[in-house]
């Protein structure tokens, strides 16, 4: 048996057990309990949507792209609609833009509640998980009442939105928000005061401002490290110019800060939705697009619940896009946060991963041991493994 102390062991995590979405494979090289190297392999959910978009018409793609993500589906359809409208040289009317923002903010609430549950679950705090998912049903019902769907709301059209907002719907949204706001106040109290929970979040996975900037973190992950990157504020799109948002920032950069920033964003979303319901501009719900989309390139960047979504659409004047590129926030945050895992306890890794909201729950580990240099897999009986552990630490102590 070769001496493995020099290289350490690689612990594979995933891709088989991610509970919610985006299966991914990680390899963490550990020295005892401390992570010394991290590696990511993605692509298990790669469906070739960018290529598929090149073979579909401008209208068909609206439905395809709404299905890029099951959680933030609206923001993808919105980004695509805005890009096509930019290419066509038209702008959706103010009422349509306000309804788009309304749905986007309801989606943010649903996504943040979902994330809160998932990361509480990773921390072993299943009570918070159950409660936040129960409360998430409220916002799901509001979305269903408004759009007819719990997910893939299909609110957008190229040039506008599909439905108007009725007075009765506005009232039920207000009632739902009152309930959610009261619950959110309680959750803010829990995540910032519960001593057991703080042990899993305070000072864990710290990302400094400089690191966040260099590694290109986006969204709440960046804002928790005091990087003022929120496109609703920086580059207001749709109706955010008329309904401005205050950015939630935090200086600490640890998991606790990521929790607090997201929860403070929830309050901001509640306020914004109420304001939109009160001051919804009158007028049309859509404009007609020209029959042909002129040749050109459009870049649209929007603030999804997890951070910046980037769309690039190129038209060559035909009936379908020449090229479409989607960049989601998770890829930016994942690469930065995986680097952060180095130096942490292996047991903190699931929380660090969940802290950026990629919705992972790959807590399974140590199925097979890989020898790092050769890549050879080999199995060890529990007895051998235990003896190896004892020898490992004995050698280190000596």
């Amino acid at each position, binding site marked *: 048996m070769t001496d493995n102390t020099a290289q350490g062991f690689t612990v594979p995590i995933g891709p088989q057990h991610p509970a919610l979405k985006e299966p991914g494979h990680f390899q963490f090289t550990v020295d005892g309990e401390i992570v010394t190297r991290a*590696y990511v*392999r*993605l*692509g298990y959910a*790669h469906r*070739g949507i*960018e*290529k598929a978009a090149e073979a579909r018409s401008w209208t068909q793609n609206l439905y395809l792209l709404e299905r890029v993500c099951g959680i933030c589906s609206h923001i993808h359809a919105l980004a695509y609609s805005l890009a096509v409208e930019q290419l066509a040289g038209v702008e959706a009317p103010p009422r349509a833009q306000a309804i788009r923002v309304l749905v986007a903010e309801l989606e943010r609430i649903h996504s943040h509640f979902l994330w809160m549950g998932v990361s509480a679950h990773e921390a072993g705090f299943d009570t918070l998980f159950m409660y936040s998912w129960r409360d998430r049903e409220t916002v799901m019902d509001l979305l269903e009442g408004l759009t007819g769907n719990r997910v893939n709301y299909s609110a957008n059209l190229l040039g506008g939105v599909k439905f108007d907002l009725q007075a009765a719907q506005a009232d039920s949204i207000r009632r739902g928000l009152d309930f959610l706001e009261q619950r959110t106040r309680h959750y803010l109290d829990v995540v910032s005061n519960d001593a057991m929970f703080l042990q899993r979040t305070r000072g864990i996975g710290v990302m400094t401002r400089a690191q966040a*900037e*260099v*590694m*290109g973190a986006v969204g709440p992950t960046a804002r928790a490290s005091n990087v003022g*990157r929120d*496109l609703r504020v*920086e*580059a207001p799109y749709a109706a955010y110019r008329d309904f401005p948002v205050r950015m939630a920032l935090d200086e600490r950069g640890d998991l606790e800060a990521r929790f607090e920033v997201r929860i403070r964003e929830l309050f901001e979303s509640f306020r914004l939705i109420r304001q939109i319901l009160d001051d919804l501009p009158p007028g049309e719900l859509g404009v007609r697009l020209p029959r042909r989309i002129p040749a050109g390139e459009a*870049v649209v*960047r929007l603030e999804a619940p997890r951070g*910046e979504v*980037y769309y*690039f659409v*190129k038209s060559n004047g035909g009936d379908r896009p*020449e*090229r479409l*590129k989607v*960049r989601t926030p998770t*890829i*930016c945050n994942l*690469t*930065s946060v995986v*680097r952060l895992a180095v130096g942490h306890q292996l047991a903190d890794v699931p929380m660090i991963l969940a802290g950026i909201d990629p919705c992972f729950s790959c807590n399974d580990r140590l199925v097979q041991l890989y020898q790092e240099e050769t890549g050879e897999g080999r199995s060890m009986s529990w007895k051998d493994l235990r003896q190896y552990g004892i020898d490992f630490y004995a050698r280190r102590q000596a």
Partner: protein
Amino acid sequence: MNTEEILNLASEVVRAWDWTSQVERPRPGQLDVYISSLAELVPVVVGLRVKRLGYLAAIVGLDLGPAVDALEVLYHFCPGDALIALRVRLPRRDAVLPSLCEVIPSAEVFERELAEMFGIQITGLHTPERLYLPDDWPDGVYPLRKDFDPGLLNTREGEPRS
């Protein structure tokens, strides 16, 4: 800095580092830089980074098709609400690009994507392995190229892809 100041600064940076590249303003809020030679790419990016204009939103590959026989790579830097697009043209055969990883670590995922989707060889990449495509994906087949044949994937599970 407002958008106009950002773009003026970026334009100065580009001219200072590389006076042979062409600079254009296709629409308000956007600056297009046509990089004249590959050797200038990394210095220009360093220049942008030094001036804190180096938030890389994405790297987009474009296949202009067998007729034009060229690939185009767009580096989109997005400080604030401005858009700075560095545009690089490459031949479709033997396309090679220098990696930006040393300057901007987050470029790695985009570059690995370029490599596997467009067949652009990236020099200086720390982990040149595949990022998205499956392990048994055939070598030399680049799905985002215009002449990619999707019929290639019509194999049953367990059968090797030809």
